[in-house]
């Protein structure tokens, strides 16, 4: 897998269902962040989880981090049509300032 590679690449669900997206990475990280991007638009920060944290919640979002497996998951509960977007994980490493983005998961939530 590439650094910050998400799967699935695309996910299609019905409103009210839960959506789970996964992210894998290769290096040791300081933080892992999830961003959302509506088609052709900017990146909206959703949540940051630190390397010493295992789970974090924000509203309908739940993020887990398993540093032993170098993976993270983003769960969106009770999805809405407005959640339709691409979701990216981004990692940063100690000593580096840049974020390394994954390939993204395109989520389609149908009414």
């Amino acid at each position, binding site marked *: 897998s590439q650094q910050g590679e998400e799967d699935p690449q695309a996910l299609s669900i019905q409103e009210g269902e839960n959506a789970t997206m996964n992210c894998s990475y290769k290096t040791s990280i*300081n*933080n892992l*962040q999830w*961003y959302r991007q509506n088609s*052709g*638009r*900017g*990146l*909206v*920060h959703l949540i*940051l989880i630190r390397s010493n944290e295992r789970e974090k919640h924000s509203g309908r979002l739940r993020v887990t981090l398993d540093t032993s497996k170098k993976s993270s998951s983003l769960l969106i509960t009770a999805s809405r049509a407005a959640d339709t977007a691409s979701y*990216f994980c*981004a990692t*940063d490493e*100690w000593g*580096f*300032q*840049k*974020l*390394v*983005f*994954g*390939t*993204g998961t395109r989520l389609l939530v149908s009414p």
Partner: protein
Amino acid sequence: EPEVTQTPSHQVTQMGQEVILRCVPISNHLYFYWYRQILGQKVEFLVSFYNNEISEKSEIFDDQFSVERPDGSNFTLKIRSTKLEDSAMYFCASSEPILETQYFGPGTRLLVL
């Protein structure tokens, strides 16, 4: 809520021309970044900037690129002699301390003809 702003939202230029993309980071942030996203591809890091100097740059950020903080609020990316492959969405971001949440602007879509 404070946000990062970018201008222009769209820019069309001829190959070989210079462009300047402008960003206003969140006011109390100290670290500034430029990223780009070629259509259908990943978001890629270009450069980070702190204390009026470049602190990190990627291989993409070659001599045709430069950044500047000309005053207390603006942060600019200059691309000298644009190439067709510079066509992309360019995002500015800022963060308060390093290694914390980076907040992104809405992007400038650059099209080089």
